[in-house]
């Protein structure tokens, strides 16, 4: 198996958001430093948002608990 960094680069190159979510979550879990873990969680959350990944809500909730994110605002009506 490729090292995670190479997998990340490959997923970025392919624009594979779902793979990026998984790889950044793995990177966060493997990190012993809270700030580094939050950096990776942030990336996982961004790509999860982009592809409507099933982990999106959980990732956001984690970041909110850490004081690094805020809850979503309610939807906006169209401007007619």
């Amino acid at each position, binding site marked *: 198996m490729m090292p995670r960094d190479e997998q990340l680069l490959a997923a970025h190159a392919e624009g594979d958001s779902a793979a990026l979510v998984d790889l950044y979550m793995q990177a966060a879990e493997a990190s012993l430093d809270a700030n580094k873990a*939050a950096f990776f969680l942030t990336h996982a*959350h*961004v790509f*999860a*948002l*982009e592809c409507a990944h099933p982990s999106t809500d959980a990732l956001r909730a984690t970041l909110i608990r850490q004081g690094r994110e805020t809850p979503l605002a309610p939807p906006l009506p*169209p*401007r007619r």
Partner: protein
Amino acid sequence: MSTTTADLSHVRQPIAQANGLPNAHYIDAGVFAEERDAVLFRSWAGLAVSADVPEIGDAVPVTFLGMPLLVVRDKNAEVRVFQNTCRHRGMILVDAPRKIEGAIRCPYHSWCYSTDGRLVSTPHVGGPGQNTHEGIDRALLGLVEIRSHIWMDVIFVNVSGDAAPFEHVHADLLKRWAEFDKPLYHGGSDSRFDLTVNCNWKLAVENYCESYHLPWVHPDLNIYSRLEDHYHIENAGKYSGQGTWVYRQLEGSEGAKFPDFAALSDTWDTAAEYITVYPNVLMGVHRDHTFAIILVPQGPEKTVEKIHLYYAQPATDTALRARNTDQWKRVFEEDIFVVEGMQRGRHAPYFDGGRFSPAMDGPTHMFHDWVAAQMERHRAVPQAAE
């Protein structure tokens, strides 16, 4: 650029005395920019059609008069129009049509927006791993949404944001065509085409509005639809066009026809109408199909006509639909030499805007008068402030 303050009072005279808009309104970059603000941005201008974004998450970037816009069908199936720029560094968000699965992610620093325009993520905005900052109020930094209204599948936008509501501005037209205010089904890929014409967008309107040219430019129509079978449609300050009493349905090899729209009154058995919804949407209604032509100005002397045909039911005969598209394409192509010829004519320095036939050019003069009125209103604002 020298004619931006040309006197338009002669345009606003009664048709028997009026001249058309001066040459500068067709060839001058300064007047083009002024018309953009006064005529196209302050009114309800046609931008695209809902059929461009048929499914939830569909996103199509559109450049309208230099303005980068994004048409999106959001998660609640509402069609919206946004400025296609990130609130962070102004980066273009979506540069080609695509499906938004979740959020719109800016490719630069990954600020993310929901399809209803909310700013939902600002990664590292407060430093690495810190995604909020007291100086960044997401509630104030959603995508800039452009006011929009959808009618007969056309997405109209009011860029300035201060026009009266569409249903008020066009109340008369909505009433006139109320019988067609029902589901319209785009014919699909074989029922849309673009024509690029080397003329100012207004010349396409002016030609469309009148029936005077039909026997000369579209001689095929003489076979069944003579000049005297047409009538003017005139509603000053709102819309104008032409109608015919002798619309004849297209027939397939075994007499097959398109299905009619439900519950139409008898008038529409043989009537058809062709109206310009000011400023830039040319529409036609018939018992069995409608069409919309959105004029997208590319500059003072170039316009893209985006044509869409609609039917009363989602599934129609493919071959007949193709014939209908071809028939209309031929008619619209027959008009190209006229609008391009008039465009070249606008470089003749002694052309004075021309005189109208008082009997035959009413709908065209009405459009000139409306454009002139918008220009006068626009010019009155800075003058009053002085």
